[in-house]
């Protein structure tokens, strides 16, 4: 499955250019689920990218772990969830030097959260390479209770924190790495449009 191409939308809607090998430079690679395939494609184009790479993988039920481990990255770590991986990611990013390459591949939720962390550490956006693979579920922040619901695939959806019915917007916050969702029936409580699957 190739990099997802999203249909044109408002400017804040991130698009992901896809990973381009930067040779044998110190690097941090983070992938979840089908994102593993993007890392394998990357290594196939230039195996040198793995020489000084720390690769972190969050399988989310996908079966690519053993293949990734065999690629030969300098360091390979598998984590049960993004939450569990954040401590390691924080440590690797925090001690990285300028010139370290950052490759992210997989879901928008993971890429949004990690890139927001990298930006908060002062890394410019053009230093972060991203490739979208797998589920098009979005990380949505409820603008009312501020809670984030992960992997949202329908519109509208129910906020997993406050229970409001929320409308999925393309408005993306780079600082938080999430999309913004607003109450769909604020003026006419209970009148909710038909639920639809989100498309890319």
């Amino acid at each position: 499955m190739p990099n997802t191409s999203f249909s044109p939308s408002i400017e804040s809607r991130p698009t992901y250019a896809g990973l381009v090998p930067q040779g044998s430079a110190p690097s941090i690679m983070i992938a979840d689920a089908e994102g593993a395939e993007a890392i394998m494609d990357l290594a196939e184009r230039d195996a040198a990218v793995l020489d000084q790479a720390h690769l972190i993988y969050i399988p989310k039920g996908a079966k690519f772990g053993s293949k990734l481990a065999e690629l030969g990255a300098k360091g390979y770590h598998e984590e049960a969830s993004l939450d569990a991986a954040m401590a390691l990611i924080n440590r690797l990013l925090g001690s990285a030097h300028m010139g370290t390459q950052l490759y992210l591949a997989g879901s928008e939720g993971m890429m949004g959260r990690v890139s927001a962390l990298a930006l908060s550490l002062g890394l410019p956006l053009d230093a972060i390479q991203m490739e979208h693979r797998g589920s098009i579920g979005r990380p949505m922040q409820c603008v009312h209770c501020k809670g984030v619901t992960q992997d949202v695939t329908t519109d509208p959806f129910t906020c997993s924190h406050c229970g409001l019915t929320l409308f999925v917007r393309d408005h993306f916050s780079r600082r938080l790495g999430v999309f913004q969702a607003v109450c769909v029936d604020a003026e006419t409580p209970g009148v909710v449009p038909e639920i639809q699957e989100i498309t890319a």
Partner: protein
Amino acid sequence: MSKQMMLEVTEVEPLTPLVTRFRFEHPEKAPLPIFSGGAHVVVEMPDGEMLRRNAYSLISDPNDASGYEIAVRREETGRGGSRYMHSEVTPGTRMRISVPTNLFALDPRARKHVLIAGGIGITPFLSHLRQLDLLQQPFELHYAARSRDEAAGLKLLPKSARIHVQISDEGNRMDLGEILTDQPIGTHVYVCGPEGLISAVLDAAARHGWPKGALHSEAFASPPPGKPFTVTLAKSGRTIEVSASQSLLEALEAAKVEIDWSCRGGACGRCETKVAACDGQIEHNDHWLSRDERAEQKKIMPCMSRFTGAALVLDL
């Protein structure tokens, strides 16, 4: 063109045999607009027939509204602006100065700032340093100059272990590879000085895998003199002569043709002008147009660029 103020020169101090510091204050001591580190002003010089306008970085404290200070290096081969400042301007001279504009501000997202200056390119960093002091952010400054005569910054720089000076006449050279290695994540690099230094820093940074977004540069550009040439204005059919010591922008201004401008150094993009026809070669001296745009010869930046050839027609 930005708003201007008539200010009075209150101090003229030679910093080195080549570089002089000028201080401007309001004649009635009214407060001046404060600015941010890296800002510049445009100074107007009525030089005989000609009205010259040169941009200079402010070197004084950005939060000090009592005056503006600049440092001017005497350029023997320039078009005459710096010679005018050195020979005609004395305490009491009144000059028209633009309000400050900043094309070289510190990046607010940076966690650490690495400042690299060459020669008179130290000037914008003098105001940066004051701002960094206030922000209490980590930084290092690397300052290279050919000789102590040129190194005007030496007199104005505070003593600090974070400030490194290299005088090439004394056999010291800047090691860019070392400066750009092992910098913590979130470091941004700022370089100001001659063209050669800027491209050396940008090339070395690219080799070390630095993202472009963390690199900031300001060329210390004043329009180079050159051979005289003629331009034609498409709408009025007028022809205008550009003399050897004049920029195209200055020649247009002298002919009362209104052109928008801000930096007068080929960096801001404000003076971009369409070329209606070009039979010859545009000497692009700006930092604004892309390589493709230069090759097409359909646009010119009159503040910096010149022309050689049979005919240049501007869409004016």
